């Protein structure tokens, strides 16, 4: 993966496949550290699966339950001296409070830290492909925060789906405008 935004797209696709209705993507940059958190309320994983997802060679191709996505994201974080952590509660264990949270920490001042890349495109791709999922995105940087809540947009749009071309273009412009805005420091 050339950009972290591609890892984020890839890991979040796991959440949509786990049947998540709500997905929170948060990026917090503070000093030389960046924490990326992807939290969903999907079906979650059993302890056995949770232990094996970081192993790229565990994957059983017939079921395709796990693959290269998590190992690549973990490697990207660890190459900067950072880390990756996954917490998950399986639907069978807790029918109400289930889901998975992936947290990756990057040291942004490390030479091997990949660029964020086109995170706006990652978000429009996710929303375009999963218009019924509630996405809550926030990117906190030194001096400003970029945010998007698809429920807020849905309350305006009514029956018009989020993956309507004009709506996706609006979301793209809305996020870009926030990124381009000067920070307060």
């Amino acid at each position, binding site marked *: *993966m050339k950009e972290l935004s*591609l890892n984020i*797209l*890839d890991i979040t*696709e796991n959440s949509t*496949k786990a049947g998540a209705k709500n997905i929170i993507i948060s990026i917090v940059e503070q000093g030389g550290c960046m924490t990326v958190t992807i939290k969903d309320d999907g079906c979650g994983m059993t302890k056995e699966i949770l232990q094996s997802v970081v192993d790229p060679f565990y994957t059983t191709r017939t079921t*395709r339950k796990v*693959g*290269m*996505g998590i190992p*690549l994201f973990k490697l990207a974080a660890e190459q900067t001296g950072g880390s990756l952590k996954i917490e998950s509660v399986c639907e069978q264990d807790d029918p109400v409070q289930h889901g998975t949270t992936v947290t990756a920490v990057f040291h942004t001042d490390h030479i091997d830290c990949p660029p964020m890349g*086109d995170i706006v*495109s*990652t978000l*429009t*791709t996710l929303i*375009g*492909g999963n218009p019924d999922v509630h996405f809550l995105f926030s990117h906190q940087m030194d001096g400003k925060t970029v945010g998007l809540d698809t429920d*807020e*947009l849905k309350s*305006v*749009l*009514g*029956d*018009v*789906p989020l993956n*309507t*071309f*004009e*709506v*996706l273009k*609006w979301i793209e*412009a*809305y996020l870009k*405008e926030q990124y381009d805005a000067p920070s307060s420091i």
Partner: protein
Amino acid sequence: MKSLAELAAIRDKMKDKVVLREGTSDMRVVVGMATCGIAAGARPVLNAFVELVNDEGLAGKVTVSQTGCIGICQYEPVVEVFEAGKDKVTYVKMTAEKAKKVVEQHLKGGEVVTEYTIDSAKA
């Protein structure tokens, strides 16, 4: 500034269109968006199809969607085109640039871009 009022205007404009669109698509473009596809560059390919289909006024006829791993990771980014009554066409090693030609020649003109298909990649 992008405002929610602008979004409301889009909603009002789209309301009539949405009804028209349902069930009228007779062509489906599916882009593989698993780890293999994403790493190989599927995101810009998908976005190019979404943009071009709209720009060319094909939105009523063609739907663009995402899928997981198609199973031929070495050929990613992979794009499949489904059309009722015709064989599936599999385009391989796609780029945003190649997407332009597929939209123009295949989706619009009805003629498969054979040089981008998996059959010519294997040959």
